[in-house]
């Protein structure tokens, strides 16, 4: 892998940047691989990388219907955090956050991971109690969460001038999650892809999988694509939103519904907010990117959808919530907005498991799955390589629904 550094940049400048290598190759598609990963999004690419890096499995193809890194990794709001409620979830996300922190160096690709802390703005006492429960449970797993006063909230976020004592929903305090950060989402996809490629993993873009193929004994034996049949004894489905579309071609039904979640950015402005602001009582969250845009998210749409679109009323609710706390943003302008679809399970926690089809693995149900990419990739690779789940993912099985054992995470999306 070509090394990236200031010196390589300077050296290449001398040759007018004509000698850079492609970040990943475009090899011809083979007839068979050890492992096929469907979906070159965050989870698919991370799984490929860790399969090669940690488990030495390099005869791997990542098949992507569209363009590499074009899934939800291209559309999310890049918040990385580990403030979860349940014992099953917290250690998983703690691991993910720590992997993210080392990722720039590990992949030699600057993710610009900025550990800038998240501030939960709290408006009611039941919420505060819930967050305190999180705080004390998170402490067991070394994730930090500290209660702060209203004054401290305002000190950390000077632009937050609303929510005063006479307002509709006065702020009563906040929680600070210092482990939280943001980074460059495209860099995560490209960094994993480049590193996986250098270890021998193949990326195949514009290679859409149309069906999963099973052998006569029921095991998975490969996939059918727009470029022909490709064989593999192990297939990982990492196609947020379209999971059931694919698994149903193998006769496998999964408890997933596909929904649309949207985000938007403001015009670029000089730095005004340095932390990630989250306010679930009103229903919005945002951070300011290094480009100066505020990256803002809110609640999901209610109904099922495969259309990456904006529901005007959901969008207006988010804007109204933000303006309540940041009234000076009234003249700030919306620059761009978009949607992405993802699938959700009955308990809103993910499924990472080998399915009842031997050799077929799914990683799905990611509802805010960006933060889970490194740990999701690592544990999935572990499962595929060792034929047994990684301890951190053990709870997130398909089978938990057989006994209706839910892992209910309130606030799985950052807002609501």
């Amino acid at each position, binding site marked *: 892998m070509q090394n990236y550094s200031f010196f390589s940049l300077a050296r290449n400048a001398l040759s007018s940047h004509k000698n850079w290598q492609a970040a990943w190759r475009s090899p011809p598609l083979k007839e068979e691989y050890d492992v096929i990963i469907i979906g070159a999004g965050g989870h698919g690419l991370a799984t490929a990388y860790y399969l090669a890096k940690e488990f030495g499995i390099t005869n791997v193809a990542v098949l992507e219907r569209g363009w590499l890194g074009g899934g939800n990794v291209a559309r999310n709001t890049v918040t990385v955090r580990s403030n979860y409620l349940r014992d099953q979830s917290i250690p998983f996300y703690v691991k993910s956050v720590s992997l993210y922190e080392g990722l720039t160096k590990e992949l030699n690709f600057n993710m610009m991971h900025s550990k800038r802390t998240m501030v939960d703005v709290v408006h009611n006492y039941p919420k505060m109690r819930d967050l305190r429960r999180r705080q004390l449970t998170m402490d067991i797993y070394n994730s930090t969460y500290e209660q702060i006063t209203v004054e401290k909230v305002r000190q950390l976020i000077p632009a937050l001038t609303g929510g005063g004592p006479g307002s509709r929903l006065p702020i009563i305090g906040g929680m600070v999650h210092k482990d939280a950060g943001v980074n460059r989402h495209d860099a995560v996809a490209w960094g994993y892809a480049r590193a996986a490629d250098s270890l021998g993993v193949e990326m195949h873009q514009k290679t859409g999988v149309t069906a999963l193929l099973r052998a006569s004994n029921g095991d998975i034996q490969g996939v059918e694509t727009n470029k022909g049949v490709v064989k593999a004894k192990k297939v990982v489905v990492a196609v947020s939103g379209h999971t059931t579309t694919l698994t149903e071609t193998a006769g496998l039904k999964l408890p997933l519904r596909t929904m649309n979640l949207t985000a938007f950015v403001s015009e670029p402005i000089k730095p005004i907010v340095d932390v990630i602001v989250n306010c679930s009582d009103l229903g919005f969250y945002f951070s300011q990117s290094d480009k100066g845009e505020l990256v803002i998210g809110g609640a999901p749409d209610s109904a099922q959808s*495969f259309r990456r679109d904006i529901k005007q009323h959901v969008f207006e609710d988010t804007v109204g919530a933000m303006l309540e706390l940041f009234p000076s943003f009234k003249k700030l302008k919306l620059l761009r907005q978009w949607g992405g679809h993802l699938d959700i399970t009955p308990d809103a926690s993910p499924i990472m498991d080998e399915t009842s089809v031997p050799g077929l693995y799914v990683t799905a149900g990611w509802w805010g799955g960006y933060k889970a990419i490194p740990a999701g990739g690592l544990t999935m690779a572990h499962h595929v390589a060792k034929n047994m789940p990684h301890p951190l993912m053990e709870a997130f099985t398909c089978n938990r629904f057989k006994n209706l054992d839910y892992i209910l995470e309130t606030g799985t999306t950052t807002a609501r």
Partner: protein
Amino acid sequence: MLLINCPFCKERNETEFVYGGPVGVDRPDPNAVADQEWVDFLTLVPNPTGPVFEKWWHARGCGEWFVICRDTVTHEILESPDEKS
């Protein structure tokens, strides 16, 4: 924001309605089905890329629950219930 055809009130803004999930199988007799069948009823819902039958409640209108058929890709409403009165 959809424009949903309520059987009583005709076309109304989506904000007047509450989404009630896709129409799955009918609720089985809980005393007559195997565990797996019961769990499937609770957790497996149709999730097609295309037309899906789904329940909506006209919460801020006439109060009727009804079923429409909507395309999950285009959001076009392909079938609405007949006008009833």
